[in-house]
């Protein structure tokens, strides 16, 4: 018996500041839609994460939906949980579902276990930059 056809890529946007910056949801949607068009991905209505700090209920909702999706396109990589353990759990669920995880702003894609290290390098450096000098 063949597997049921999967729908396209679920957008994932945020409603709280990311790295101290606020991006309107309409702009986040535009970035994702543009990314999907340029990469020939079918874009599905985005889920908006809740504004309460450390809340990832919408992300969990989208992860639960993965068996029916081809993947997730989040606005930015830095919307993922701050905790490395929680991020790795996200990657695991995406790969286990044979789906892909895209970050539209950074143009990064997680398709295989080999991509985890590259994505995590970006994350860890970004977290370290918070403690680095801010002026040139």
């Amino acid at each position, binding site marked *: 018996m063949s597997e049921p056809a999967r*729908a*396209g890529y679920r957008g994932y946007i945020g409603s709280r500041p990311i790295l101290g910056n606020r991006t309107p949801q309409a702009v986040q949607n535009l970035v994702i839609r543009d990314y999907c068009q340029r990469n020939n991905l079918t874009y599905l209505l985005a889920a908006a994460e809740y504004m309460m700090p450390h809340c990832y209920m919408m992300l*969990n909702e989208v992860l639960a939906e993965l068996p029916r999706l081809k993947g997730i396109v989040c606005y930015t990589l830095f919307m993922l949980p701050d905790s490395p353990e929680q991020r790795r759990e996200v990657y695991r669920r995406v790969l286990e579902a044979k789906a892909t995880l895209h970050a539209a702003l950074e143009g990064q894609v997680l398709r295989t276990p080999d991509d985890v290290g590259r994505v995590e390098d970006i994350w860890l450096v970004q977290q370290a930059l918070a403690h680095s000098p801010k002026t040139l």
Partner: protein
Amino acid sequence: MTGGFLSNEDRILGDAFLKDGYVIRAVEDRAALDRIQARMAELAASQLKLDPPNDPKAFLDDIHDHVAPDKLNAFRLAMIAGINNETWFRRAYYGLAEKALASLVGNELAMQRRANLSIQLPGDESSLLPAHTDTWAGDSPFEVVVWLPLVDCRATKSMFILPPAANAKAAGKLSSYNDKGVEALYRDFESDMRFLAVDYGQYLLFDQNLIHGNRVNVEKTTRWTFNCRFKGLFTPYADKRLGEFFEPITMRPQTRLGLAYKLPEGFDE
């Protein structure tokens, strides 16, 4: 409700809104509603390269005969762009619930700049809005939603809402659903959820701080509903800001005078 200054009509409407978290009423301008529906049907027919329909409501009800689920979001966005380009549309929309908005929200209002549209084909799982409140996702708790069906919406073709008492219980334990997800929350409170029957010719005005959403439409026809937010112009804004998301629509003369006023200057000690 407190306040002997309110009219009896306002008090009755306000009490119903506070008790249930919503009111369903006949639109205040039927001609404006018919114009919106007819234009939406024309736009849809044009997008699908079909002749303009004789019966807009039947055409919209059966749009699933012409639009596949994988084309739905692009079609929906084209419909939103088309109707929001009509210069008369937002004034007409506001006029559908103008008196109720004045009564429940105020007479100096900000209105969402682009009304949103939900199209839910029978059996389609791709455009669901799980249980949520708009406030959790960046809206101000001072906003209300005017929800407008272009077809008769009942049961799963409509939306559900959790009334205030049950909503307070659910919101109080929301963090315990962080890992289980909102579907688990829906199931735990399913018996309290109300699917609202709102027919064409009526609007639903609801408090978007209450948990609401939709399920797979298992009825035989397609849901078409607009949603548009209104708030008091000077009440606090959240992530949906003035200018980018909201626009003043009913600023009053003394407010204009006050905003322009400058105290005389030039005094020195």
